[in-house]
């Protein structure tokens, strides 16, 4: 076991301990967070879609099960579940698009569970979750017609996207629909910053569950991230001081 492994293992262990203990302490009073305009827009969009009888489009990106981008896909799935639950009062269920096979199956499962939980009649339509393409641009090319043809009032892009996400935000703009977008990819974040009104930058992607009320674990996850961030800041500052004093 190298030093890097030991430090990594300790970080995982400390994070797990913090997550468990904070979840226990906050079990009755969930923590509150600063307002993020993108999530305010998302909540408003869900309400409006129910009122208008329009549809929400949740695009989960191309995070594959055996890639580091899978975490962003999981964050997207948690958000999809909350959106599907909240939009269940409407006439039309949300439609999910994915660029990975496993993600497509999980999205379908998520929509089906939400449908069964909130709807008593009718049969679940398995085409509400779609694999639109496997390469970045074929994925976007498959998703854009859905944004045009299926009465989409809001598109929620949450997951792993590259710069091709710019074509989807442009399609939403042309369609006159709202767009909330977040990606774990740096280039995509720059594109989304320029092309959406309320972009979510960096780790805000992983805050979607907490802001849409996905449960106490999502909420305390943000606290754990904050604590770890302060620890990293402290370590960086100590490192700078050691370097400046010539000890290292």
């Amino acid at each position, binding site marked *: *076991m190298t030093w890097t492994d030991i430090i990594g*293992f300790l*970080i*995982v262990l400390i*994070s*797990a301990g913090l*997550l468990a203990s904070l979840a226990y302490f906050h079990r009755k009073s969930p923590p509150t967070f600063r307002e993020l305009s993108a999530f305010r827009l998302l909540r408003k969009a869900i309400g409006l879609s129910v009122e208008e009888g329009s549809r929400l489009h949740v695009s989960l990106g191309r995070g594959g*099960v*055996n890639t*580091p981008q899978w*975490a*962003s896909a*999981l*964050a997207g*799935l948690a958000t999809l*579940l909350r959106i599907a639950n909240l939009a269940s009062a409407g006439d039309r269920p949300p439609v999910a698009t994915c660029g*990975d*096979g*496993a993600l*497509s*199956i*999980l999205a*379908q*499962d998520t929509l089906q*569970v*939400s449908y069964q939980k909130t709807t008593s009649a009718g049969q679940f339509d398995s085409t509400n*979750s*779609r*694999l*639109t393409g*496997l*390469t970045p*641009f*074929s994925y*976007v090319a498959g998703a854009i*017609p859905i944004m045009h043809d299926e009465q989409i009032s809001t598109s929620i892009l949450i997951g792993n996207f590259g710069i*091709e996400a*710019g*074509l989807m*935000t*442009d399609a939403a703009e042309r369609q006159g629909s709202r767009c909330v977008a977040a990606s*774990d990819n*740096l280039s995509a974040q720059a*594109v989304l910053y*320029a*092309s959406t*009104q309320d972009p979510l930058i*960096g*780790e805000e*992607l*992983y805050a979607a569950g907490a802001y849409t009320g996905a449960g106490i*674990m*999502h909420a305390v*996850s*943000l606290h*754990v*991230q904050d604590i*770890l*961030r302060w620890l*990293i800041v402290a370590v960086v500052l100590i490192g700078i001081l050691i370097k400046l004093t010539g000890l290292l």
Partner: protein
Amino acid sequence: MKGIISVLVAIIAGLLVLAGYFFDLPALTYIRIVILNWAVILAAVALFVGIFNLFKVHATKVRAKQKGHLYSVLAVISLLFTLVVGLALGPENQITVSIFSSIQLPVEASLMALLAVTLIQASIRLIRYRANLLSAIFLATGVLMLLGTAPLPFLEIPVLGELIRPFIARVPAAAGARGILLGVGLGTLTTGLRLLFGADRPYEGK
């Protein structure tokens, strides 16, 4: 009962893979590799299911004669044709390769070119959406980087190409990128932990 079993399988598999990563024990490493290989095989099967889903969506569109169903006819024919050619001739065959190099790649390249235009439009819209200092810095940085990188036809701006562009790329851009990546890393860590705690169960739609 089914739910408990699936949660247990997911948590144990996750813990074993994590432990196999940190502890250099032959048994753990072996289990980690086996589980990851299973994941790769399952991902490939899932891909096939996903493609079937794609076929079903377009077939439904064609049957119901929905808006744009002619494009769906084209998509279904292309899908079946590529599948048959790929299965019959193999992925290395000249015809199979040319389907990708002569159709797929040019189409994707043209979408990339379209994206360049789209991004210019988006930059103009940015001024309309958020006329603030950050947007101004964002746009000014973009213009400076473009002028410092692009080959200009009649003049060269040495200060931009040799001083300003490298400074922006190495100092503020690298620092910002590292900060964002650290945040993404922490988000990834807590997402993984929620799975290990069984709080997030995407395999059950929860």
